[in-house]
């Protein structure tokens, strides 16, 4: 173009690239995350709705025992830690998981920051730490699930249906999708569904991180001239952390 004209000082978008001053990929990642937030909202609504309308335990928290008749106190369910069998450590393990995920989010920000400076070594280093953090979180979740499924030393007595047969005063250990020792069937079903759905997001995030790690290490983004892919995957990774912050509050604290 030979002539250029200044249209407005307010810099309204004139039909060129990058509306909202963000690239197409970044913008679409944002809107994908928004729709994903709707999905997780649906799950959390279901959880809170079922819990709100279920019988609550109104007695002394210290005298609490598991029953299939009322919703359990979360602190009494999540109190195990690997290597400390029989020791009551309420919410310590889930605290460790939260810590790991927040730290891996920080290393991801540092990777993005290194990308802005075209620092290939920095990107590769911090991406590797992020991947390690993701694997550490997934490992913790695998342990938590196996403990949740196996159950505690003492059984809960309740009425269950196994293979279509009604069994009264049955000794329930651990949890599955139809009954569990901690509370009403919906309790374990929601645990599996919500932490599982989040865990699957973490897993997808780790896969994406590994791809980006190899691309960065092979110099693809250096040749391309920018590290925007790290930013886009970073957005997804932070979102996974964000969802965990909410799962942590609604599932483990309240």
């Amino acid at each position, binding site marked *: 173009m030979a002539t250029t004209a200044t249209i407005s000082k307010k810099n309204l978008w004139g039909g060129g690239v990058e*509306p*909202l*001053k*963000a690239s197409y990929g970044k*913008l679409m990642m*944002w809107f994908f995350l*928004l729709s994903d*937030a*709707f999905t997780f*909202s649906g799950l*959390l*609504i279901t959880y*809170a*709705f079922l*819990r*709100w*309308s*279920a*019988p*609550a*335990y*109104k*007695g*002394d*928290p210290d005298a609490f025992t598991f*029953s299939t*008749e*009322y919703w359990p*106190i979360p*602190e009494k369910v999540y109190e195990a830690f690997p290597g400390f069998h029989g020791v009551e450590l*309420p919410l310590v393990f889930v*605290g460790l998981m*939260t*810590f790991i995920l*927040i730290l891996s*989010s*920080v290393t*991801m*920000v*540092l990777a993005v*920051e*290194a990308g802005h*400076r*075209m*620092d*290939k*070594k*920095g990107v590769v280093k911090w991406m590797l730490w992020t991947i390690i953090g993701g694997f550490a979180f997934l490992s913790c979740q695998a342990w938590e699930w196996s403990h949740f499924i196996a159950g505690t030393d003492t059984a809960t007595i309740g009425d269950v249906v196994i293979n279509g047969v009604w069994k009264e005063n049955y000794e329930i250990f651990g949890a599955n999708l139809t009954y569990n020792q901690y509370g009403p069937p919906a309790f374990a079903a929601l645990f599996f569904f919500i932490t599982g759905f989040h865990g699957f997001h973490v897993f997808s995030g780790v896969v994406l991180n590994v791809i980006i790690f190899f691309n960065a290490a092979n110099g693809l983004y*250096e040749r391309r001239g920018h590290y925007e892919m790290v*930013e886009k995957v*970073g*957005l997804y990774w*932070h979102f996974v*952390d*964000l969802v965990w*912050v*909410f799962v942590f*509050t609604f599932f483990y*604290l*309240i």
Partner: protein
Amino acid sequence: MEQATTNVVAQPADRSKILGIWKIAGILAFVTAIEYVFAFTMDAGTLRSAIFIGLTIVKAFYIVSEFMHLGHEVKGLIYSIILPMIFIVWLIVALVNLEGAAIKESKGVQDYEPAGTEHVEESH
């Protein structure tokens, strides 16, 4: 396509920027620590739940605004993400708090009170 060998020089890190990132991480860890203090010292109830949700929103703000960089984007982008979420929060409050309580009442769901709690002693 002609082959061009370019030397990409990594710019030196800005210390204040790196420190800022770790500061946000520190805030997130600190808020989580406060949540633990409340979890262990306060009895469960509406107030404690409200505190937890409030602190969660504080954490969400720092993650979205700083880590996800939304706070530094243009206004149009900020609003196109935040406004739908505000409507969702409205929906959550309506469904959980109002509908959930109404269903519980209409089904006649009774809370569990073990024998020997204060409630029983009052009637004697």
